[in-house]
């Protein structure tokens, strides 16, 4: 055949490369800069392709669950899609907890899983698992690539699905023969997806109705969640502008902290089960409630039939299934939080008339009364040798990190320390707070902080941890050492699974069944053996020095802060109680008992 005959054919047929090469090329086109992963038989062709290039960095974790949490930390602190690579079978099943965590908290992740070759699928081959079957309810969407010609398209589509609409985790299951066989490369589609096209533009009519309701409010309240964080820093800036313009009080969910500056006087603190008295009472007493990017989670609403009983409700959410799921709302608005807030601002300015400022001033007077209770107050004995209160430890950590002037990112594990971190560490910027909100995954914080540190090498990344949670992914200390990631682990060590202990005290007659951890490791020696720095504070006079030394260190640090074992997390709305039935801590007169038999059956 002459060249003139072959040329047209070559132009039509895209050049073929090994599947693994095509995969990496697609990841590069999707601007992936780092992959958190762990190798194994089924993904060896991908690791070979990684070996032969420099554009994409690979971080070798010590457990696949940690790979997903690290990618979550990376995604949450940057607004980008996190990328994970694990092998077939146990690699994939170990990743499942991380995937569900990302699903519950709407974090964009693409997780590549190896699979046995297509001809062996269904034969119970070595390290075979029905990964798409197992991860179907654990992901936003998943794919099994069975034809080489689909590979590049599926990778591009997975990234589109992960980041669009309500973000979430996407799994691509890759049989080994697909990674080895030649595959064509195709660029990302420029046309709309054939079926998945989430609505991001809010409806103008609904926005106008919302503004009319808000301008008619006498006791308004703004309640915002992770949707504002996911909508990007511009959405947070718009939220600040809108809140200041209206003069309304605002609260953030656990997922939404940082969207509005915690030190602003209009901010009432976090709401919900361990939220502030003023935030929860304002939710209960408001007459118009504006929810932006939150989902009326049970940890926020308390008893549903007593949740904000006298308010007209406006709900902005990018996911239509979040609207009217738990709480019926009068004015639903489907769209991106940032675009919706911008539309609210425009409509607010365009609409003549203002909110009833006198009524608003009265409302603020009521709120200031609640605030005056100072629900987060605690007593720290300052005499030398006194035991450290966990609240004080977090407060000093906050003060001293601010004093250092460093850009600071905080992750947490799950339990009492998580709530104290949410209450006492004050976030003024979005994307600085990484916590497992929906799933409540112990073991989240250390790998998440690792992912944050990878994305922000110069920043101060601290995992506020409990001694029980930290042991669930402690092996990642080894990853920190390998990549010289100077993550700080700040353990509030009370030797109990504190939140379990607290519930047992309040609901189960102080029968502390299996909530005490005997034979804890020596965390100082543990840090040392993982090539890090171990520090310990056992009394209040040692605390500041330990925190300062931790911040100053350029290595991974575990700071073992031995705190009061009996301390409980207050205020608290017991399960099954309403916002106005909060329990306040010691030193406060409790308003109502709150705990009921029906509530005991709830989690």
């Amino acid at each position, binding site marked *: 055949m002459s060249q003139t005959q072959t040329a047209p054919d070559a132009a039509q047929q895209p050049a073929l490369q090994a599947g693994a090469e095509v995969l990496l090329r697609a990841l590069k086109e999707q601007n992936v800069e780092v992959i958190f992963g762990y190798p194994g038989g089924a993904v060896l062709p991908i690791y070979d392709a990684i070996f032969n290039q420099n554009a994409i960095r690979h971080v070798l974790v010590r457990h696949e669950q940690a790979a997903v949490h690290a990618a979550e930390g990376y995604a949450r602190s940057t607004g980008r899609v996190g990328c994970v690579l694990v092998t077939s079978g146990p690699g994939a099943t170990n990743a499942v907890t991380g995937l569900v965590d990302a699903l519950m908290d709407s974090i964009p992740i693409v997780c590549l899983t190896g699979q046995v070759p297509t001809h062996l699928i269904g034969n119970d081959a070595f390290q075979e698992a029905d990964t*798409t*079957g197992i991860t*179907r*309810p654990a992901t*936003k*969407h*998943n794919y*099994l690539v*069975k034809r080489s010609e689909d590979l590049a398209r599926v990778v591009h589509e997975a990234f589109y*699905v992960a980041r669009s*609409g*309500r973000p979430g985790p996407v799994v691509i299951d890759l049989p080994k023969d697909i990674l080895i066989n030649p595959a064509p490369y195709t660029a990302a589609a420029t046309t709309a997806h*054939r*079926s*998945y096209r*989430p609505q991001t533009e809010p409806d103008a009519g609904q926005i106008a109705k919302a503004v009319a309701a808000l301008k008619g409010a006498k006791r308004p309240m703004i309640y915002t969640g992770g949707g504002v964080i996911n909508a990007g820093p511009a959405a947070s800036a718009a939220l600040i502008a809108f809140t200041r313009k209206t003069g309304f009080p605002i609260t953030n969910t656990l997922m939404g902290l940082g969207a509005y500056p915690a030190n602003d006087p209009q901010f009432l603190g976090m709401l919900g089960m361990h939220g502030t008295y003023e935030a929860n009472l304002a939710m209960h007493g408001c007459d118009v409630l504006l929810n932006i990017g939150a989902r009326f989670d049970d940890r926020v609403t308390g008893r549903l039939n007593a949740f904000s009983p006298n308010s007209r*409700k406006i709900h902005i959410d990018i*996911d*239509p*299934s979040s*609207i*009217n*799921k738990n709480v*019926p*709302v*009068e004015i639903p608005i489907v769209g991106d939080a940032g675009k919706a807030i911008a539309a609210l601002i425009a409509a607010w300015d365009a609409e003549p008339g203002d909110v009833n400022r006198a009524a608003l001033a009265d409302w603020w007077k009521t709120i200031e009364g609640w605030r005056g209770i100072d629900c987060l107050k605690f007593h720290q004995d300052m005499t030398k040798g006194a035991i450290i209160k966990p609240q004080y430890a977090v407060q000093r950590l906050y003060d001293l990190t601010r004093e250092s002037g460093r850009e600071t990112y905080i992750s947490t594990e799950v339990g009492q320390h998580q709530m104290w971190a949410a209450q006492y560490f004050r976030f003024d910027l979005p994307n600085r707070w990484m916590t497992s909100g929906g799933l409540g995954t112990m073991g989240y914080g250390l790998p998440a902080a690792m992912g944050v540190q990878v994305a922000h090498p110069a920043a101060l990344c601290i995992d506020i941890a409990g001694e029980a949670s930290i042991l669930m992914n402690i092996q990642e200390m080894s990853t920190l050492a390998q990549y010289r990631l100077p993550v700080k682990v700040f353990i509030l060590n009370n030797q109990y699974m504190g939140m379990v202990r607290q519930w047992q005290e309040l609901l189960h007659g102080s029968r502390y069944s299996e909530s005490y951890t005997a034979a804890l490791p020596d965390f100082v020696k543990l840090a040392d053996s993982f090539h890090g720095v171990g520090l310990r504070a056992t009394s209040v006079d040692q605390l500041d020095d330990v925190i300062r030394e931790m911040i100053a260190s350029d290595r991974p640090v575990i700071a073992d802060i031995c705190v009061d074992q009996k301390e409980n997390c207050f205020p608290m709305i017991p399960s099954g109680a309403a916002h106005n039935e909060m329990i306040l801590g010691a030193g406060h007169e409790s308003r109502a008992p709150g705990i009921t038999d029906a509530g005991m059956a709830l989690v």
Partner: protein
Amino acid sequence: MAIDTTLRTATISVLVENEPGILARVVGLFSGRGYNIDSLTVAPVEDGRNRSRINIVTSGTDMIIEQIKAQLSRLVPVHRVADLSNEGPHIAREMALIKIIGAGEKRVEALRLAEAFRARVVDATTESFIFEMTGNTEKLDAFLELMRPLGLAEVSRTGVAAIARGTRII
């Protein structure tokens, strides 16, 4: 706002991309979230566009049925979701194959009733009939109730296929 707790039956049609796992996604959504499936049918439609139509008969309060629609809509391979029972008149039909085993007077009575219900005999032996019957769910239920004392031995039902009346399409 008061929550309406009245239960109603809904016939939901879902147009999906015809790809592996889509039925598992839909069924898994129902079981995972605790929704009922009274009937389910699925088959490819629209040749050349690679689409399937799933018809689901479910029940719940208005809020739950709205939630089912929203949850279905956010599945990535779902094109359209319609609650036919709530969006104007619609036709719903299912087909059943019904095996009657018996002899004598009961056998004659079964055949007589089958004619009245316009069921077709698609197989017969000296001791059995198989009837094919098409209609709405209530008609099939009524016929099966009548057949029970007359030797009803086995039933195979297709589940509901449904479509909106008039010019409306989903």
